[in-house]
C-alpha cells in the first residue's frame, strides 16, 4: 500500500494535465468528475496509506520512495523523492481530505462559471503542489511544491481575470510570498554550501553533528527558512497579502486557508524543527512573531466589514498561534492546531460561501443579518466553525488544540508568561470577532439590499459542510488535557517525527488554573460579543463617534497600515524608478555624456545637433562629421591650404620629434 505513495501528488497533477490540455473539449460533468475524482482518489490512497502506516508501521516510522534523481551535479543530487513519516502523514491526510471536500463543494459552487475547467485544473495543481510540498524528501523538491503552491494561489486569486483588482491581489500574493521564498532559497543555498546535502533527514542529522546550538550559521539558516515560512504563512511582516487574497472564489479561500498554502510555513518549521531548536534566538523570534501576529490580526479582524476578510485575518491570527507553538517548541501542538484549524476554517469559508452566494456576492456583514432561518445549514455549520474557532470549551476541536498551545506556551522551555498572555488576549479577540460575524450575519433583522436567492444549496455543498462540521467537533477528541482524560493519541503518534515539548513548569494545578482562565476568556469573549453586537449595538455606535476610536478602527481595518507602509517604501519607488528608467538609463548615460560634451563644443555651432540623432555615441560622431564636412568647402584654395598646413606639421614632427 505504501508504495502507492507517489500517486498522491501524481493524481491531482494528472488531473491538472488532463483538464489543462483538453478542458476545452470536455463537458462540465466530466470536468467535475475528473477534477474531483483525482483528488478523491488521492485522498482515498492517503487514508489507506494512513491505515497501513498505523497498522503496520514501516521500520523507523519512515517510508521513502524516490522516482528519479532530479539534478545530479558534483555531489548535489536532490531527487524527485517522497518521504512519509508521522508528520507528513498527518499533513497529507489533512490536505487531501479537506481538498476533496472543497472540490466537491466547488463542483456545485462554481457551476455557473465560464472557467470551470480552468478552475478545476488550477485547484488540482494546487493540491498536487501541496502534496509535493508535504511529501518531499529534500528541500529542493519541497521548494518546487512550495513555489507551485505560490503560483496556484496567484492563479486562483486572480481567477476572475477580467477585473484588474483581482489581478492586483493575485500578484500581491505571489510577489509577497516570493519575497519570503527568496529568503528560503538563500537558506537552502546556505545549508547546501555548509552541509553538502539537501535531503531533509540527513540535513537534520548533519546539523546536529556539525553545528553547535546557537551557532551563527544555524541562526542564519533558520532565520532564512523562517523568512520563507513567514511569507507563505502570512505572518508578520509579510502578512499583507492574505486579506487581499479574498479576491478569488470562496472555495479557493477555503483551500488556501485551510488545507494548503498558509500551513506550508508551519509545516516547514516543524519539518526542520531540529535546525530551529539549534537556533534559540530564531525560535524566540518565531514565537514573538506568532504572538504579535495573532494579536494584530485579531484586532484587524474586529474592524473588518467583509466577511471573508474577517476570516482571512482570523487565519493569520490562528497561524500566529501555530507559530507561537512552534516558537516555544510545542511542535505537535502546532500541528494539532493546524489540523483542527483546517477543519473549522474550511468549514467557515465554505458556509460563508453559501451566504455570499445566496446574497448575490454580498460580502459586507452589515448588509446581512437574520439569515438563521433562511439558511439553516449554513447557520449551523458556521456556528460550529465559529465555536471551534473561538475554542468553545469541551465540544469543539479548536478548544483542545488551542488550549494545548496556551498551556505549552506557559509551561514549556521556550515559553513565558508574556507569550501566554498574548495568546490569551488573542483568544478573547477571537471570540469577539467571530461571534461579531455570527451575530451580525445570522441574527437580527435582514439588512440585505436585494432579496436573497431562493435557490438553496444542494447536496454537493451541504455534504462537505456537514462532514467538516463533524470534524470540527470531533477532531479534537484525540488529544485532551489532563483534567479531561488526558488522551494523547495525536502527540503519541506524531512524536515519531516531532519531539514532545520540553515542559519545565509541570503541575496539574497550574494547568487546570490556566485552562480555566482560557475557558473563561473564550466564553467571556462570546458573551461580550453578544452584548456588543446583538444586545446593545448602540453602545458601540456611540463609541465609534469618538474620532480617536474611529481612527483606531480604521487603522485596524487597514491591517495596521502595513500595506501603506510597504506601498510607500517599496512599491511606489520601484514602479516610479522603473518607469522613469523605462528607456534604460545606461543608454541615456551614453547619450547624456555625449550631449554634455556637445553642449560645450556647440559654442562653435549653435545649430541643434541633437535633432538628427539616433543614439548617443553617434551624436559625437555626427558632430565631428559635420565639423569635418564643413572643411570640405569645395574651394580648391582651402584644400591647398590644408595641404600646406599638413606639410608644415609633418616637417615639424619630422625634425623636432
Amino acid at each position, binding site marked *: 500500500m505504501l508504495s502507492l505513495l507517489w500517486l498522491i501528488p501524481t493524481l491531482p497533477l494528472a488531473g491538472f494535465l488532463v483538464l489543462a490540455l483538453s478542458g476545452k473539449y470536455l463537458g462540465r460533468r466530466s470536468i467535475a468528475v475528473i477534477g474531483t475524482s483525482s483528488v478523491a482518489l488521492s485522498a482515498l490512497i492517503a487514508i489507506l496509506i494512513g491505515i497501513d502506516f498505523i497498522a503496520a508501521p514501516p521500520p523507523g516510522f519512515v517510508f521513502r520512495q524516490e522516482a528519479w534523481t532530479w539534478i545530479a551535479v558534483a555531489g548535489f543530487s536532490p531527487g524527485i523523492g517522497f518521504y512519509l513519516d508521522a508528520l507528513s502523514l498527518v499533513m497529507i491526510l489533512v490536505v487531501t481530505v479537506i481538498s476533496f471536500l472543497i472540490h466537491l463543494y466547488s463542483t456545485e459552487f462554481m457551476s455557473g462559471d465560464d472557467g470551470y475547467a480552468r478552475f478545476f485544473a488550477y485547484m488540482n495543481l494546487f493540491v498536487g503542489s501541496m502534496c509535493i510540498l508535504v511529501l518531499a524528501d529534500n528541500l529542493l523538491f519541497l521548494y518546487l511544491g512550495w513555489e507551485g503552491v505560490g503560483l496556484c494561489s496567484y492563479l486562483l486569486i486572480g481567477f476572475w481575470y477580467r477585473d484588474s483588482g483581482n489581478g492586483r491581489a493575485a500578484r500581491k500574493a505571489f510577489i509577497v510570498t516570493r519575497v519570503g521564498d527568496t529568503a528560503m532559497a538563500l537558506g537552502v543555498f546556505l545549508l547546501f554550501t555548509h552541509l553538502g546535502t539537501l535531503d531533509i533527514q540527513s540535513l537534520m542529522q548533519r546539523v546536529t553533528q556539525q553545528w553547535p546550538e546557537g551557532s551563527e550559521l544555524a541562526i542564519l539558516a533558520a532565520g532564512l527558512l523562517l523568512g520563507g515560512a513567514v511569507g507563505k504563512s502570512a505572518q508578520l511582516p509579510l502578512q499583507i497579502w492574505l486579506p487581499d487574497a479574498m479576491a478569488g472564489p470562496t472555495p479557493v479561500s477555503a483551500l488556501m486557508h485551510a488545507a494548503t498554502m498558509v500551513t506550508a510555513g508551519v509545516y516547514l518549521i516543524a519539518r526542520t524543527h531540529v535546525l530551529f531548536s539549534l537556533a534559540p534566538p530564531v525560535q524566540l523570534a518565531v514565537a514573538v512573531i506568532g504572538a504579535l501576529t495573532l494579536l494584530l490580526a485579531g484586532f484587524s479582524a474586529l474592524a473588518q466589514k467583509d466577511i471573508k476578510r474577517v476570516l482571512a485575518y482570523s487565519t493569520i491570527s490562528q497561524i500566529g498561534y501555530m507559530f507561537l507553538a512552534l516558537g516555544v517548541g510545542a511542535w505537535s501542538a502546532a500541528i494539532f492546531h493546524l489540523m483542527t484549524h483546517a477543519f473549522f476554517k474550511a468549514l467557515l469559508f465554505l458556509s460563508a460561501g453559501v451566504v455570499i452566494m445566496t446574497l448575490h456576492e454580498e460580502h459586507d456583514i452589515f448588509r446581512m443579518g437574520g439569515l438563521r432561518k433562511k439558511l439553516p445549514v449554513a447557520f449551523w455549520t458556521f456556528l460550529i466553525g465559529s465555536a471551534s474557532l473561538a475554542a468553545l470549551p469541551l465540544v469543539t476541536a479548536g478548544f483542545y488544540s488551542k488550549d494545548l498551545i496556551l498551556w505549552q506556551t506557559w509551561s514549556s522551555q521556550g515559553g513565558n508568561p508574556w507569550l501566554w498572555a498574548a495568546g490569551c488576549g488573542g483568544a478573547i479577540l477571537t471570540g469577539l470577532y467571530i461571534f461579531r460575524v455570527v451575530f451580525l450575519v445570522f441574527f437580527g433583522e435582514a439588512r440585505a439590499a436585494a432579496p436573497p436567492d431562493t435557490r438553496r444549496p444542494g447536496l454537493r455543498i451541504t455534504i462537505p459542510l456537514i462532514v467538516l462540521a463533524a470534524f470540527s467537533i470531533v477532531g479534537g477528541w484525540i488529544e485532551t488535557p489532563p483534567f479531561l482524560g488526558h488522551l494523547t493519541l495525536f502527540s503519541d503518534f506524531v512524536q515519531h517525527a516531532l519531539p514532545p515539548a520540553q515542559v519545565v513548569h509541570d503541575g496539574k494545578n497550574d494547568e487546570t488554573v490556566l485552562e480555566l482562565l482560557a475557558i473563561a476568556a473564550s466564553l467571556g469573549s462570546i458573551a461580550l460579543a453578544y452584548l456588543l453586537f446583538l444586545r446593545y449595538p448602540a453602545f458601540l455606535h456611540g463609541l465609534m463617534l469618538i474620532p480617536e476610536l474611529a481612527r483606531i478602527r480604521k487603522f485596524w481595518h487597514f491591517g495596521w497600515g502595513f500595506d501603506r507602509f510597504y506601498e510607500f517604501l517599496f512599491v511606489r519607488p520601484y514602479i516610479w524608478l522603473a518607469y522613469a528608467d523605462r528607456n534604460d538609463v545606461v543608454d541615456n548615460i551614453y547619450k547624456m555624456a555625449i550631449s554634455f560634451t556637445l553642449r560645450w563644443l556647440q559654442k562653435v555651432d549653435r545649430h541643434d545637433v541633437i535633432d538628427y540623432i539616433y543614439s548617443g555615441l553617434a551624436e559625437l560622431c555626427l558632430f565631428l562629421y559635420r565639423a569635418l564636412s564643413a572643411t570640405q568647402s*569645395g574651394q580648391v584654395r582651402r584644400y591647398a591650404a590644408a595641404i600646406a598646413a599638413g606639410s608644415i606639421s609633418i616637417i615639424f614632427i619630422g625634425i623636432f620629434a
Partner: protein
Amino acid sequence: MAGMKMSAMRTAEAVAAIPMHHGLVLAAVLFALGLIGILVRRNLIFILMSIEIMLNAAGLAFVVAGARWEQADGQVMLIFILAVAAVEVSVGLALLLLLHRRFQTLDADAVSKMRG
C-alpha cells in the same frame, strides 16, 4: 675654400663658391612665394603661374644640390621638371580654356559646386 674638391679628370671651369644653403634658401623663398600665390589667387592663370614658380623653385633646389655634389643629376632632374611643368601647363591651360568657355570666368572658386 673648405671641402673643395678638384677633379683632375675633368676640365672644368671654377665657379663661384656659393654655399649650398644659400641657394636652397633662395629656392625656399621662391617656393614659399609660389605657395602664397596659390593660396591667395582666385584667377586660374595666376594659380597656374604660381605652380610654375613652385616647380621652378624645386628645380632650382635640384640644381643647387647638383652643384654641391658636382653631379649632372641635378640638372637632369631639372630637365624632367621642365617637361613636367610644360605638360602640366598645357593641360592646365586647356582646362582653363574649357572653364572659360563654360562659365566665362577664370575664377577657381566658381568651380566649387561639389562639397560636403
